[in-house]
């Protein structure tokens, strides 16, 4: 028996199996069909289609009009990218702010411009003590 003949016999058996689906399954398939038909797309005045964007359907064969998948991909990536850029920008801004604050403090100390309470503050003294070895 050649491949085609064998395939034909298997096909007959599979058809028989498909005809023997239980009532519940057949009913659900009918419902699905009715729901699909209710949403059938009808040709409008513009029926020209752009060619499918093949590269976007990696992992499965391309469907006609598959370019939309690329858009879905972009819709995922864009907010993530925006969020990442936002986090980096916020981090940078906070860093700059901290540097500016410390620079202002240093200036105030160097110019003896700080309030007297600063020198009386135990925490400030400890900070100066701790920073001394590294600043020299």
């Amino acid at each position: 028996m050649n491949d085609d003949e064998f395939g034909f016999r298997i096909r007959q058996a599979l058809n028989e199996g498909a005809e023997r689906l239980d009532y519940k399954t057949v009913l659900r398939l009918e419902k699905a069909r009715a729901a699909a038909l209710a949403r059938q797309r009808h040709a409008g005045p513009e029926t020209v289609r752009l060619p499918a964007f093949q590269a976007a359907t990696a992992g499965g064969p391309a469907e006609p009009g598959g370019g939309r998948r690329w858009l879905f991909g972009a819709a995922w990536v864009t907010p993530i990218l925006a969020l990442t850029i936002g986090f980096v920008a916020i981090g940078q801004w906070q860093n700059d702010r901290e540097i500016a604050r410390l620079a202002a403090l240093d200036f105030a100390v160097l110019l003896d411009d700080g309030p007297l309470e600063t020198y009386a503050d135990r925490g400030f003294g400890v900070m100066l003590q701790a920073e001394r070895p590294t600043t020299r």
Partner: protein
Amino acid sequence: MATREELSEFLAGVERRAFKQAMFAVRDESHALDIVQEAMMKIAEKYGDRPAAELPLIFTRILQNATHDFFRRTKVRSTWVTLFSALGSDDDPDADPLETLEAAGDTRAESSEAAYGREQIVAIIEEEVARLPARQREAFLLRYWEDLDTAETAAAMGCSEGSVKTHCSRATHALAKALKERGISL
């Protein structure tokens, strides 16, 4: 452009085969029905204005993609869910063959021993088809059940015609060997 009647007729003609194909792949009735429903919705919504002659190939592609998408989603969600659905397959060792007989008995006038034997053979063939590696099964079913030619099968599977021939040949031999081992000669 396909009319509503043409689309309805087309879907009615392919829905059972589509369900079986999805079943072979996912081995879960509920998921298989979801896949077929998704494919039907998609073809009606997005390709309902295509000529009726184009519908079979488009539907085949949509069904393939819907099945692949199902596996992708399942993989992303969790790996044990896949295992769980595999355990819910027809390979249940405690399954009672009489249940199959009773269920099928309603739809068939034939109720003799011969009919029961034939049902068992069909069940074994379906079981062995489901056991084929995914790509081999896809190629075999598209080629011999959906009656697509090699080029159409290659287009639907997104591979070369040579690959389709290889997959089909391997599937045929594996199936013939498995059926022979189970005492079935076609």
